[in-house]
């Protein structure tokens, strides 16, 4: 089984362009020293580390690189290790900020199942471990499903995480209302690709986030015991929030129909007779989407702080 995967591991990495460009660090970490051979006895680096910078990522992740770029991808370091015919690969995605790294991690982690022995936020199992620390989102890949390699994978993950500086915690997650929040559903968004798994509001970057404006979302239980998603997008000022609101209303997805409208809010219905409600308050756009009832709401009113995200981008 392992031999069956060896060619893929080797060639999947080699089939892409190797573009090693040493550039001045912009955000992110320009260089990463992977764990040395022997991080666990017998495990050796199997070849030189690969580096993918900026749009070179498309060669490594052909169908999905857009999400990484939307969150602020800087560069990827890929190092493979082998021992007695078995192989692991380490991928270290250096992002532009801790918020970017966490946003990507939350998109990729799914329902988290943290592994004991990794102090950083993580999830995983015998086939893959993902974790986040500072500006980095890391993956340790085992292309078999053999449980026996899990301890080694944990060691490799920890060895990699030890090389990544710790940063300040990301506070954006704390802005969501607490009442009715369904644990484990928080996501960060910075554009249409992160929003796509949740809802389609229109073509392209219909919320005008431009990969620079941050938002946060989570699933909630409404007063009818149904689930909907609450989204908050933080614009730098009321003018841009208002402009984005108008843009959304004028470019609303063809499958959504406005059923009620106020100067600074509107409600739509979708093709499944579910509802969405959009409001702009100061510099924040608030959206409740995928509601089963038109008046679904979080228990208690949601009040935006009116405090804009102090930095548009990282």
């Amino acid at each position, binding site marked *: 089984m392992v031999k069956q995967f060896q060619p893929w591991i080797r060639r999947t990495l080699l089939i892409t362009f*190797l573009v090693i460009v040493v550039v001045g660090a912009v955000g992110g970490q320009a260089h990463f020293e992977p764990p040395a051979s022997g991080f666990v006895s017998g495990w050796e680096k199997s070849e030189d580390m690969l580096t993918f910078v900026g749009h070179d990522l498309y060669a490594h992740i*052909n*169908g999905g690189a857009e999400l990484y770029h939307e969150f602020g991808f800087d560069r990827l370091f890929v190092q493979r290790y082998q021992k007695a015919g078995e192989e692991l690969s380490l991928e270290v995605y250096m992002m532009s900020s801790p918020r970017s790294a966490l946003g990507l991690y939350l998109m990729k982690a799914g329902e988290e199942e943290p592994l004991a022995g990794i102090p950083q936020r993580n999830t995983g199992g015998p086939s893959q471990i993902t974790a986040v620390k500072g500006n980095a989102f890391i993956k340790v890949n085992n292309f078999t499903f053999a449980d026996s390699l899990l301890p080694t994978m944990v060691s490799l993950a920890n060895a990699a995480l030890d090389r990544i500086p710790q940063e300040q915690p990301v506070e954006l997650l704390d802005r969501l209302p607490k009442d009715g929040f369904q644990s484990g559903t928080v996501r960060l968004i910075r554009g249409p690709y992160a929003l796509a798994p949740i809802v389609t509001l229109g073509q392209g970057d219909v919320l005008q986030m431009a990969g620079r404006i941050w938002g946060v979302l989570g699933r909630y239980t409404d007063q009818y015991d149904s689930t909907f998603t609450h989204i908050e997008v933080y614009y730098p000022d009321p003018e841009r929030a208002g402009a984005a609101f108008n843009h959304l209303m004028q470019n609303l997805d063809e499958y959504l129909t406005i059923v009620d409208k106020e100067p600074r809010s509107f409600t739509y219905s979708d093709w*499944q007779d579910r509802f969405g409600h959009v409001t702009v308050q100061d510099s924040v756009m608030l959206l409740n989407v995928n509601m089963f009832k038109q008046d679904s709401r979080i228990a208690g009113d949601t009040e935006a702080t009116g405090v804009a995200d102090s930095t548009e981008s990282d």
Partner: protein
Amino acid sequence: MESRFYLNRRRFLAATGVIGAGMAVLGTPTLWAQDDAEERRPERPRTNIDSVKDIPRTRWSIPGAYPGKVVKVHNPKALVEDTFNADVISGMFTHGMEALTGKSLAESFELFIEPDDIVGIKVNPVGAGLISTRLELVDAVVDWLEKGGLPRKNIVIWDRFNSMLQEAGFTTERYPGIRIVGLQEMFMPERGEDAEKLFLNKKGEHKSIVNFNKDVYYWADVEAPTDAQYLNQHVANGKESYFGKLVTNELTKIINLPVFKNTGNGISVATKNLGYAAICNTGRLHRPLFFDVCTEVVAFPAIRDKVVLNVTDGLRGQYDGGPGPNSQFVYDYNTMYFATDPFASDMVCHNAIVEKRKQMKVDVNEHPRFTDYLRYGERLGLGIADVEKISLVEA
């Protein structure tokens, strides 16, 4: 502005007087929503679909002999503790073919294949060994073809990328006497090496361009990047995506063996396995035309008139993180889907993957745009996408 590519049901009914007669087809809220959506749909890039969609069909054209029929075969013994059982998989193939055709496996051969056919088996080698088309399934198909009388030299296992085929185990050593054909190479420079020197010929074109037919192409009014990396990966960078000569000039039949996996909120199964593999220069098409390519490329006679059978390899499935391999979301599914109609098969597979995503509590967006391309295929007469008209047989 009404797009010329989409039939507007409401206007059609009005033109025929049906609405005026008060006998409008009420349909369902979803259908009415789709009508409204079509009127409001933003203009999309022009393509040359109009130049091919009315070309007369042949007896072999999709949706084939069993439009709308999809057979699902499940056997939990196919994949056990990471080991694939070739005999069980072969049995599943037999069972599925018999349920699809109502005939024995041997008798089914002549329903699809003629004695002089050159049959291309379209596999998906991405994620070799993890989520690629299983060799055991290909073995079962090859065995069926041979026992039907087709010589091995008339069989081709193909994909777009030659190196991926090799990685996934599709080699001449593994399949002696059978051609293994990738439409293109993607060249990998060593550190410091000039990539262009590797992949450009003396004319400044990609070396693999000779494998593509410049007379048969999918044209889309979408610019392509002009950088070397794109050209190396996609062979051409104009507004034409050329079909592979293998597909246009050599193959007379295609057996489609896609894998069961997602791509974002949609799927990458039967139509995508054909639409994005038969042509070059596809990267430019992702953003403006992503799923429509799966339909419009398949509408070209080089595909439409040759795809006689679709067997979806769901022995493993991947419900998230696709279309690339992502082991975290790979699971044992032990299932195959059989159909002559790739659009019906894809609709069934789409719904199955959505259910799996919900079960696994992955975020699910069921916006119609992720299946609009299948309904588009139905409007073009390529298959059945309406779930009310699809017959799913669990064999």
